[in-house]
């Protein structure tokens, strides 16, 4: 899809004239900036780029991009984006969604878009709260969470979005967070360049209804000990001096260990291209929540033909095999008789 005649653009060209209306201090701003800064580097044309969203704070995103965009209905961005991406493979289709939009009301569409491997990029803003409806717990909120709709604490067990995507055998799965623009841009670029469904969970702070949800792991001083960077082909190591690592035991369980205790050879080597999503799944729920050391980066990136390409190949092959459709022949294809 790379087009060598794409005009040179800057971040400004990708920003629409609409006033951005998220709450001051919202994590969404930094994600928007990361996307707008990335777009000039992707080699895509503005008119070929489409952002589709559902409903929620994050779903205002398309209004701020100077591209084509649709702010659709709650949970249904992925069906619309699927129809568009499949019928128009020449377009660069992005879906912007949140934890309620993608995992609660739209959960069914997410798993099916991922298993089909529709050629689009999903940015899931996970703030573990319903913001637009002013503060109810979400399907990623931790157990016991006290919100307006759970004054005595939530009794719901949360989804882990990366685990869910891997369970659906998504071909590209990554996690990043709103306080690290360079990391976001790197992950977004890879998700975009991936042929098929690129799924990115973004830990995003809602400073009004769930402030500091990810602070324990994303605060600058906490990151070395609390974020585990995944690098393909490299041992999974972290810590102030890289003293910690992830090891898989003989029962297939992942543990955080002192590298000095087990030896470097015992540390798991990250393989994002492994055909089986099992190891990536282990890593995805290494942390029970954003208060423990949490892997970020690309969990899985494997090649599998995308749904639209397969369907469009069938359409081309059918025309070659049967010839282009002839309506008169179709109407006469059953038993006919003359009077």
């Amino acid at each position, binding site marked *: 899809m790379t087009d060598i005649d794409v005009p040179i653009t800057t971040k400004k060209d990708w920003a629409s004239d609409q006033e951005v209306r998220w709450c001051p201090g919202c994590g969404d701003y930094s994600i928007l900036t990361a996307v707008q800064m990335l777009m000039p580097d992707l080699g895509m044309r503005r008119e070929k780029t489409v952002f589709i969203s559902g409903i929620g704070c994050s779903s205002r995103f398309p209004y701020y991009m100077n591209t084509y965009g649709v702010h659709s209905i709650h949970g249904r961005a992925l069906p619309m984006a699927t129809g568009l991406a499949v*019928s128009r493979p020449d377009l660069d289709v992005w879906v912007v969604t949140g934890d309620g939009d993608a995992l609660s009301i739209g959960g069914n569409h997410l798993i099916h878009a991922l298993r089909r491997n529709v050629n689009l990029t999903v940015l899931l803003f996970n703030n573990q709260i319903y913001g637009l409806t002013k503060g109810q717990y979400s399907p990623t909120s931790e157990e016991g969470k006290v919100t307006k709709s759970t004054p005595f604490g939530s009794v719901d067990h949360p989804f882990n979005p990366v685990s869910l995507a891997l369970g659906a055998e998504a071909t590209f799965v990554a996690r990043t967070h709103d306080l690290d623009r360079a990391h976001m841009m790197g992950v977004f670029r890879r998700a975009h360049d991936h042929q098929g469904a690129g799924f990115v969970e973004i830990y995003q702070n809602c400073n009004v209804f769930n402030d500091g949800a990810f602070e324990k792991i994303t605060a600058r001083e906490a990151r070395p000990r609390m974020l585990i960077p995944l690098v393909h082909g490299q041992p999974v190591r972290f810590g102030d001096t890289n003293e910690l690592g992830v090891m898989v035991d003989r029962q297939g369980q992942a543990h955080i260990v002192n590298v000095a205790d087990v030896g470097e050879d015992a540390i798991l080597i990250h393989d994002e291209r492994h055909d089986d999503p099992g190891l990536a799944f282990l890593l995805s729920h290494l942390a029970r929540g954003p208060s423990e050391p949490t892997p970020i980066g690309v969990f899985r990136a494997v090649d599998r033909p995308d749904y639209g390409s397969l369907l469009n190949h069938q359409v081309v092959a059918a025309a070659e095999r049967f010839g282009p459709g002839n309506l008169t022949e*179709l109407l006469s294809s059953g038993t006919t008789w003359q009077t």
Partner: protein
Amino acid sequence: MTETTGHPMHELEKVVIRFAGDSGDGMQLTGDRFSVSSAIFGNDLSTVPDYPAEIRAPAGTLAGVSAFQIHISDHDILTPGDSPNVLVAMNPAALRANLHDMAAGSTLIVNTDAFVDRNLTKAGYAANPLADGSLTGFTVFEVPMTSLTLEAAKPSGAKSRDAERSKNFFALGLVSWMYSRPAELTLDWIASRFAKMPTVAEANTLAFKAGYNFGETAELIGGPFTVKATAFKPGTYTSISGNTALAWGLVAAGQLAKLPVFLASYPITPASDILHELSKRQNFGVRTMQAEDEIAAVGAALGAAYGGHLGVTTTSGPGMDLKSETVGLAISLELPLVLIDVQRGGPSTGLPTKTEQADLLMAMYGRHGEAPLPIIAARTPGHCFYAAIEAVRIALKYRTPVIVLSDGYLANSAEPWRLPAVDELPDISVEYAAGPNGPDATFLPYLRDPETLARPWAVPGTPGLEHRIGGLEKADGTGDISYEGANHELMVRTRAAKIAGIAADIPPVDVDDPGGDAEVLVLGWGSTYGSIVAAVERLRRRGLKVARAHLVHLNPFPAGLGDAVKRYPKVLVPENNLGQLTALVRAAFLVDAQVITKVQGQRFLYSEIEAAVLAAMEAGA
């Protein structure tokens, strides 16, 4: 084998035959082959299947009975007939399930071999109806079809269990002789259909011939009869069901609009056949997607429409419930979209395989907010083809979702259909927006065509037209988010005016009133067409002055409807619901329209409409 020398030929104007047996007895196939023979023979015909909702209900039970009714005639007919003249019953359950539809004096052809104690018990018979005198008043022909089939099929070498399965061809042979259908057509068909299974082909051929010859020699049947060829309008004909006609109509509409068809659907009875048929048509550029649910199906169709394709989704009532929020989005985005609702009995899961017309008010009003859209109803299986094209034409021209209402009866019944000349079908193509339309080379996505009030269809990929739209209320012209009260009222009224304005783009109501002085207007919509026309013809033959009109466009109503319903002293509206069009007509025109209802999962018989109109006229006299 067409020689019938020695038997006088009795000529009939028409005959209605019902084949009934167990689900596994091949009654649909038998009926279908009889239809093809009759069509090629030159009769007008109309057929309707009646099969159980269960895939395979227990053999021999009432729930497992599968039937196929065919009406053949020497003149133009529009319904599969009221009461059958002949019932072929392959077992006791088939007899018991269908006997109540048989008039006194009609003919029963029963497979006596199946009337054994076990089958009688399964069908709920305490005594054998062939022996207890309960069939007095019918002409009963007792034929041991199973044993005659087994005997006939012996030379094929088929095992008796396999040979027994050929008994439907025995029945077909017998009825083919009885009504002088040419045997060669069926024999040729058997040869080609079972070419890869020579033993089966031979057993079926022998069974068919045995049935045919049984009629010839046994002289039990009182035949043969003949129904002369119909004086059809010259042309090439094929037999078509409503679902196939809808699918072909969509293929045609894609060609006429010069747009690739994108169909996203979720399997649901009785609409799935449209998905099946279109899935075979990839060489027309048709893309089909079996979505994960009804909501995803309409969403994907809308996404494709946003991308400039012809977006379509097909479903039945429960699916319509689920799609309604996305239909509202399509109304707000003002994008072309076609929804086909093959109605079935409701509410909820209701009667999945049975017909009903009870989704009209949902189509009309089943969305939150002021959310009008055009509604089109098909009236015969063949008309489904044109209904699909008309829906696409309106959707594209006015950038609006359009609902097409078919139903379970139209979906599965079939009639001879004169093939249209493809080059005489209308060009329904529209233009995408190509460039800026506002001041300073800006693009205003909600700047409307002054005539149609349609907004530009600006598809992604067009340079300079990048814009953002959504389900939030939009400012007139710019399409920017607007919460301003006066703008909302303007947009609500504009969307309503756009749909109402379509009335000027459709034919005015066509009232059939030969004398111009009818005392009653019978107003219908959808699949009641055939029964209403037949009933009105019979009423006129009685000397009654009855006018008739049938609506294809349910929203907006065609011009002249208000005058028509006010012109007649009495307006009667037969509907397979409790009065949905009746309510719309009463509300729109303040007339005392009266409904004639039937909600039994079955189409109206023309005699039912005839009786109801007569009763109403007598009551009003």
